[in-house]
């Protein structure tokens, strides 16, 4: 007798496989759409799309030339500012909530953090545009200009509060709850015996926490990576505060662009130009890959750490 091993498909598989297949297909389709639509830009300009800071939108197709380097720079710069703000906040928050607060307040703080994570980003956007931007102009930019005029970087009086700094601060506020969630979870997973061992040596809470922080370092790193991914993909809130100007400057007070805000502000009228749409899809493709790489890395690190801890 010859046994033929057939593929077993029961009713369960018949229902779920198509759905899983569809989601994968959707993702690949998305990648394909970005590839095919950005192809003309690469054929026309090569990698200069990413490597040059130039934006000539013209009615005459021959004169058009685009390079999104300033937007790439702006995305990285604002996200790094955001991380510099979010990291100390979220680590402090995790320690404070985990170690010091009584149960009742702890619940409150966690719920507040969750609300911050879920709050519609446009609400951060309107608050950023109408409160944060003037606030940063009046309380950070002007004082710095007033009292530190010898720093050549700040020698030009900032015209408005719309800047890399404002975008970075707003993003920092927005990503803090996401990083906090990862760090807090990791901090809670530290085996209790470690803490007891530290205390039994007569260490103070501060010294013990310092040691435990070393233990959850990989989780903090993956939290940072995931936070960076969130920051770089954020669109509307950033585009309302970043100033939307092509600027390859390291001055945090100057207005700039990010990749997502470039797409958000330019895509709507890109159809009247011959080559702009394709360049914007190329920008999207760049964001696509950054998002993919960063998130895969963050997820991978987090998983590996969780596995190590639970062993």
């Amino acid at each position, binding site marked *: 007798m010859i046994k033929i091993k057939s593929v077993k498909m029961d009713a369960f598989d018949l229902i779920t496989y198509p759905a899983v297949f569809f989601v994968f297909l959707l993702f690949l389709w998305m990648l394909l759409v970005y590839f095919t639509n950005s192809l003309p830009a690469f054929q026309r300009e090569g990698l200069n799309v990413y490597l040059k800071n130039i934006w000539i939108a013209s009615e005459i197709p021959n004169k058009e030339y685009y390079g999104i380097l300033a937007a790439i720079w702006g995305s990285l710069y604002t996200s790094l500012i955001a991380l510099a703000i979010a990291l100390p906040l979220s680590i*402090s928050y995790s320690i404070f909530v985990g170690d010091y607060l009584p149960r009742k307040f702890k619940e409150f703080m966690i719920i507040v953090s969750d609300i911050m994570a879920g709050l519609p980003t446009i*609400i951060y956007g309107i608050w950023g545009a109408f409160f944060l931007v003037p606030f940063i102009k009046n309380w950070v930019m002007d004082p710095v200009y007033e009292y530190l005029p010898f720093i050549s970087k700040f020698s030009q009086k900032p015209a408005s509060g719309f800047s890399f700094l404002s975008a970075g601060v707003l993003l920092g506020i927005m990503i803090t709850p996401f990083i906090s969630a990862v760090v807090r979870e990791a901090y809670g997973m530290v085996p209790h015996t470690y803490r007891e061992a530290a205390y039994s040596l007569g260490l103070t809470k501060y010294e013990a*926490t310092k040691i435990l922080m070393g233990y959850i370092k990989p989780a903090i790193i993956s939290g940072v990576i995931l936070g960076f991914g969130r920051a770089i993909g954020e669109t509307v809130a950033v585009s309302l505060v970043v100033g939307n100007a092509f600027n390859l400057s390291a001055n945090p007070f100057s207005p700039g662009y990010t990749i997502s805000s470039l797409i958000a502000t330019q895509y709507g009228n890109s159809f009247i130009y011959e080559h702009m749409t394709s360049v914007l899809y190329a920008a999207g493709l760049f964001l696509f890959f950054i998002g993919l790489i960063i998130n895969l890395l963050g997820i991978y690190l987090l998983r590996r750490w969780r596995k190590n801890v639970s062993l």
Partner: protein
Amino acid sequence: MYPFNLRKLKDLLFLVITGILSLLMIIPLLHIIFTVFVEGIGVIIRVGPIFVTGTLSDGGIGPAIAGTFILTFLASIIGIPIAFAVGVYAYEYPDSIIGRATTALLEIMLEFPTILVGLFVTQIIVIPMGTYSAIAGAFSLAIILMPYVAVYTKEAMSQIPFTFREAAFGLGISKIKTVFLIIAPIAKRGILTGLLISIAKVAGETAPLLFTAGGLYQSYPQGITNPVGAIPLLIYTLVQSPSPSDHAMAWGASLVLLLIFLGVFIPLRLSIKEVKL
């Protein structure tokens, strides 16, 4: 005695610094809620009930509210069945190759820049149709909704003790019946809460609607193949306008959006232990 005191001092300093920084973290949210209330309540009181029913020229955001509900409803119809099936699959096969890949894909999609979804849908639906439409906006939101729903479904079902499965299989019940008629109903509460939180989340999305929904504020939506507005999209447009009266409208619309969000989110959040956003 001296070094001992220094250590104590450091310990105290540490407590004070972490406390202040934690407070600093939640102050923006409190300030946001406060500002939105203060700035938004004025325009709503001045305009009265027309604010939530009238069109933009009457000084109201009625069409935007209707649009948000239509978009969210359509997105749920499109996204939830697929996402539920995917979540169930990821729960059933957590260790198979496809199962692992599915879980990874869901986590990537959770973190994915939402503007990219919008541009994708523009290319595959809006351009072929030749017009912005509710269906394009809803499809865009559905793509963002799916990973949330799937992950919540998976996590809620994973909470159910394994003995229930063993008992079901021991009685000779098939896999499909075990999962859909035994495990899913037991995990009902978790799944439903996850569903609603996901819906609350996508209802506030702006970026995926930018080039898909189109925006419609002077009249109520005409059907799913026509453009619709949405509250977040309206706020985004109004904030960019130079006119102060538009800014007042934007604050009023923000207050409405905030109230809807908090009204849905807080009761749900209080009913479960953990959320994934």
